[in-house]
């Protein structure tokens, strides 16, 4: 009982070591993404260099700051007056930083993303004024990248488990009221008001009640949940305690995909620490509330993120959804009332309890309160894991946070909600990002995938891409989803191959509506969204594919014709050697020609043709496209 209070005391001491460290401190972003970017080598170089120079320092592996395009990142604290965050830190840079900044006076401003300490520092701006961070509000992610995720005292020092303590004090009914007042809605996809699920579960007969944390995160390209767990696991676990206490649930499960080994490790470590602190088991903190937790590894099927499939999977059955009602809140795991909540939803709960519902609801729009994390990716200058207030416009995300489109290209659309969402065209960038607006636009919030598409993206190709994902991930149970996604895909394929007819567009629309209306679970019900939105916003492109056999983005291979510009061709024969089907002929030093009948549109000639000639050009329908390489090559000369 007193153990938590004691732990808080110890936590203050631990945190002091960070805040007022007598020795230099290195916080190396070493979550999955940081590791992939090379933080392992950075750590190695740093440690051996410290050894070699006999410099005493503290090196901590932390979670992710969300600055993907700047990974690996390292925060270096020389002393409390000089703390700098560096980006794109390789082994050389870390040695440079050690030499020049830690051991010298030069803070290496050219590598710095910003300073985290007050006061002036050699022209380095404030970290939180960095363009990528200026518009962000990091609430849920507040600890990520700044604390040691495997040290419980760091979490405790930053108000950890205070939310739980307050909840225990308030009692379940008032917690429910606070969550209701906060306006919190599910972050896993559909945005269902959290309190409503809780109330239904509380009112449902049947014991025990179960709480499940959905950490299945199956959208391709989404990693918000993984990041949060890797960077701040206790935040999610505290959220689970608060929810379980309110529901009267005695057993909890965390369903996490097996492809997340680091997240699973962090959870295991954190759960062990909770046990040590008396935060799991019988009579937690003398409140009479008892709770325990089990981790379940998912095999990585996208559909297992769907609530009823997830339950089946935990029960040891094939992960196949079942129709609702009955809803899991009434009859879920083993037929008992069960609440399933997304990682991020849970991560918000400690904050709501600690700071109050009004604090929470000051962020966000009328219907969508709080902040939301997104995995910003695609054709954008600054990719990363961001957290913004709901209601922010897409434009602000793309241009302010993301820094716009690279290469001076034009923005075409933003895909939210992963394969279940839709694309929102450039004209609609003033749209606020909230549950309702996104749904109205034909997309959805989803769990937070956000892919930026530029003018080189083909709408037909994109619909094809997402549909081939859902088509493969469909569990195969219900006919509309299993067959419908495949049938839609086959229509898209024939349009992309220039074999479509105008009637295909009506067929596609009709089929999409059938799949949406008749599928059993969310996977099938949302799978047509990419098709429906591209049809809605980019119908002209579809028509061009069909009527002109033209792909304006030069993506759909079968609609491209490779040609050689006789004026540019020098007859060097590079393309002849590259062509896998011997489609190119021509005498040496004379212009070559491509036999269109034989050509398989592989593009090998285009690549093979030397930059100075760049004689190969492409045609699609009425459009002609030359590569820019020649101009560049000429300039270079």
């Amino acid at each position, binding site marked *: 009982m007193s153990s938590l209070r004691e732990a808080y005391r110890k936590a203050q001491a631990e945190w002091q070591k960070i805040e007022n460290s007598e020795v230099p401190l290195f916080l190396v972003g070493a979550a999955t993404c940081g590791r992939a970017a090379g933080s392992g080598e950075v750590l190695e170089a740093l440690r051996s260099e410290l050894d070699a120079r006999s410099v005493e320092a503290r090196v901590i592996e932390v979670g992710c700051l969300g600055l993907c395009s700047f990974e690996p990142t390292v925060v270096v604290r020389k002393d409390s007056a000089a703390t700098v965050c560096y980006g794109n830190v390789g082994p050389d840079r870390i040695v440079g930083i050690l030499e020049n900044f830690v051991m010298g006076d030069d803070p290496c401003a050219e590598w710095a993303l910003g300073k985290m300490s007050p006061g002036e520092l050699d022209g380095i701006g404030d970290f939180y004024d960095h363009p990528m961070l200026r518009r962000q509000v990091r609430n849920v992610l507040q600890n990520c990248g700044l604390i040691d995720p495997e040290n419980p005292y760091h979490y405790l020092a930053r108000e950890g488990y205070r939310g739980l303590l307050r909840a225990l004090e308030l009692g379940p009914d008032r917690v429910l009221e606070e969550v209701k007042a906060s306006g919190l809605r599910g972050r896993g996809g559909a945005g269902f008001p959290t309190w409503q699920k809780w109330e239904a579960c509380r009112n449902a007969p049947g014991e025990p009640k179960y709480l499940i944390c959905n950490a299945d995160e199956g959208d391709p390209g989404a990693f918000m949940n993984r990041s949060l767990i890797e960077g701040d696991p206790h935040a999610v676990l505290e959220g689970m305690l608060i929810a379980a206490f309110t529901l009267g649930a005695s057993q909890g499960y965390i369903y996490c995909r097996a492809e997340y080994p680091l997240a699973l490790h962090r959870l295991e470590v954190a759960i062990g620490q909770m046990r040590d602190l008396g935060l799991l088991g019988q009579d937690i903190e003398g409140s009479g509330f008892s709770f325990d937790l089990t981790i379940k590894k998912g095999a990585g*099927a996208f*559909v297992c993120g769907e609530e009823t499939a997830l339950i089946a999977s935990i029960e040891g059955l*094939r992960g*196949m959804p*079942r*129709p609702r*009602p009955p809803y899991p809140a009434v009859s879920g795991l083993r037929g008992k009332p069960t609440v399933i909540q997304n990682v991020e939803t849970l991560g918000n709960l400690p904050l709501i309890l600690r700071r109050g519902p009004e604090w929470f609801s000051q962020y966000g729009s009328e219907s969508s309160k709080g902040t939301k994390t997104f995995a910003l990716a695609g054709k954008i200058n600054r990719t990363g894991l961001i957290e913004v207030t709901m209601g922010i416009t897409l434009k602000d995300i793309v241009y302010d946070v993301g820094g716009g489109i690279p290469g001076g290209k034009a923005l075409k659309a933003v895909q939210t909600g992963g394969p279940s969402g839709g694309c929102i065209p450039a004209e609609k960038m003033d749209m606020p990002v909230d549950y309702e607006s996104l749904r109205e636009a034909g997309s959805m919030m989803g769990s937070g995938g956000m892919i930026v598409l530029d003018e080189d993206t083909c709408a037909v190709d994109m619909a094809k891409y997402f549909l081939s994902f859902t*088509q*493969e*991930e*469909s*569990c*195969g*149970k*219900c*006919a*509309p989803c*299993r*067959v*419908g*996604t*495949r*049938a839609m895909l*086959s*229509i898209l394929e024939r349009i992309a191959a220039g074999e479509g007819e105008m009637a295909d567009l009506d*067929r596609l629309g*009709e*089929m999409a509506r*059938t799949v949406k*209306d*008749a*599928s*059993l679970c969310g996977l099938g019900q949302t799978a047509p969204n990419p098709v429906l939105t591209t049809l809605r916003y980019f119908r002209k492109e579809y028509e061009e594919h069909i009527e002109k056999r033209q792909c304006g983005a030069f993506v759909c291979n079968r609609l491209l014709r490779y040609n050689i510009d006789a004026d540019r061709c020098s007859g060097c024969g590079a393309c002849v050697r590259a062509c896998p089907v011997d489609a190119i002929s021509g005498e040496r030093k004379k212009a070559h020609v491509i036999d269109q009948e034989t050509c398989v549109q592989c593009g090998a000639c285009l690549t093979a043709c030397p930059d100075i000639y760049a004689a190969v050009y492409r045609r699609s329908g009425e459009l002609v496209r030359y590569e820019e390489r020649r101009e560049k090559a000429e300039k270079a000369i």
Partner: protein
Amino acid sequence: MKLTIDGKTVSAREGETILDCALRHDISIPHLCTHSALPPFGACRLCLVEIEGMRGYPTSCTTPAEDGMVVRTDTEALGGLRRNILSLIMLEHPSACLVCAKRELCDQYRPEAEKAGRTTGCHTCNNKEICDVRVMAEEFGLSELPVPPIYHERPVERSNPFIDRDLNLCILCGRCVRICRHHQEMTAIDFIGRGSKTRIGEAFGRSPYEAGCQFCGACVDVCPTGSLCDRYAKWRGRPERRTATTCLFCNAACALELQSSGGELIGAKAVDETTPICVLGRFAIPEFLYGAGRLRVPVVRADGSLRETQWKEAIEAAAEKLRPYVGSGFALVCDTTSTLQDRYIFRKFAREVMRSENFVEIEPDARGASRVELPPGTKAALLTGDFVDAGQLEPLELLIVQDCYPTPASEHADIVLPVALFPEVDGTLMDVSGRERPLRKACEPPGQARPEWWIVAEIAKAMGAEGFAYDSVATISREVGKSTAELLTERDEAPPAATDVKRRRAYFRGHRIDEKVPGLRELPLDDAPASARRVGVEAESAGGFRIVQKREVAPNIHEIVIEAPGIAKKAQPGQFVIVMVDETSERAPYTLSDWDAEEGTITLVVLEVGHSSRKLTVLREGDRVAHLAGPLGIPAEVDRLGTVVVAGGCYGIGAIIPIARAMREAGNRVIGIVEARSHYLHYFGQKLEAICDELIQTAIDGSMPTKGHAADVIGEKLRAGEKVDRVVVIGCPFMMMLVARETQPFRVKTLAALNSIMLDGTGMCGACRVSVGGKTKFACVDGPFFDAHLIDWDELFTRRRAYAAHEVRAVGRTESVALHACEAHGAGAAR
């Protein structure tokens, strides 16, 4: 609880789903995955409804009825959705026949399904005559598919000794998986894979037995498509009669529905669909009844050898020979698998006529075995089965056996009398708990076999006894004072063998059941280790004709190249050869699709439709066929005529090639028109393209650019005024008839090749008899080409159907043997 469905107020029971409630009140809602014996699943999505206050379209099979609900089942939106859903389901099902424009005409000419390896449409589906999906498609007015259907190209799985699985038909309704889980508490089969690769099967590639299959056959009974079927009954179509009776293989007394056609038993299934029955009841009865050697005729020993005779003579002989033993040394031995009425007569006969106390009734043991020793001093015995060791029979002065199959005792006997078995008789039996259960006659006994009571009563009468003038089982029952027994239609627990196939009975009246039912030999018995005895047929002789090349060019259609230099040298367009796969095979004619005189090879296109063609198509490259005769038949006449249409369907797509080529070489403009039910059944497109001046490939289901039959295309051309000087057509009779109908009004001479109706190709069997212009011809010697306008098509179809029924019966019996042969060859793709 009251709710409104389509404006009608109905009352619902607690926990009832909307669908159940609606059906109970005669409001129909389409449904496919739901089955009365199973919990709802919600997969097919056809039972969608609209409910006031609920978003979207909930499935009525899973949504519980609630007080005050307002449900609509028939709005326009629902109708459209349902049709779209069904058309999606049909994209993964061989659905060409369902959307075919000539469906009605086709059904009129060939209502029964035709055999095929893999099913590629209703026309070749064993389920055709009893199919709910078909009915539903018709009700929905399904007439086209949004995109070309997908054929999974899966081999027919035959690893289960009793069940064929053709997953090309499976619509993944999950009924089989669910009934398996329900009946066996574990699933021998489950969904495997994801997305469009999802299929039904045993996990980890295990065999059915390894996966836990107990061969209760419930999956076959709930499958709404032809995907799962009882191999024996596969091509029997809709049974003419269904009889509810009791199984007598053991005393669990399961209630069975026995199915028969033409007095012959074809199948069995459980009456109570919620409890499984065992492999013997579900699968073993027909084969046990019609096994080789079944006793059919009374036999009497005269001058040391057994001689077939008539009942009258046999009964008199028995009476004569028994008379000396009245009151001395007679014993009658039976077991409790004889009915109560039979046994009453046995006892009465022993006591009152023979004045003997030695009436021995055996209760079979758990394995079904019934062995006894004869009472001391027995000199004359009447046995109703194989109960007594041979050593004890030697010293007997008189032995009369009444039985169903020969045994050591019957070999030894003075008189052998054929008995009718339990599906062939009425009566009453006693189950394991002492309750009486009824036996009802479901089919005719074979040959002269008679009920047991009848035989003994006849002997008694011949011996001059009074009180044996029974004319039916009912009269005996009345004398015994039996009330009517009831079927055991509901039971709390399945009989032991239904959930553990090892615990089934091995014997019936002393006969090994698996001797008559080969499939059982693959399944272990408790006391006997699994003896997977496989009757392998090795390609034994090095003689015969070697297969040089073989591939399946489309489902069921195999291109086979055989070394036959003699034939290759002489072959002419339109001729055929006769193949005998091995010494015992039927003779089967196949048209020459190509030949190469230099290489010395001939090419056949073989459609896998029946026993003979399967035997041929399971062979592999390097294997040999025993006999090959040809070239036979009168070659097609090839002249310079102008424009010639060559039309082909099925194997005919391959078979018209030589004619098309010859016509082209003779200077004609050749238009090739080939038809198939769906895009995936087309083959040889490139080959034909090279030969024909114009090639049109049609698909009946609209999955190719040209929709419809070849006949439609020809008709269109003629109506458009195109000049055609000759039509040559090879395909199934239906296709050729349609072509003939189109060309007749334009008087375009049309030759049809009647190869497909031949059986042995020698003019001997007469199967290929046709009336052409009022004269009788034999397709195999006078043909194969005839003037299609002179052929009496109606007569041809009638004759075909009679022969088809005959063939089906033959296949049923040989099927198991064929299976073993196929497996020995590892030919997984065999039908």
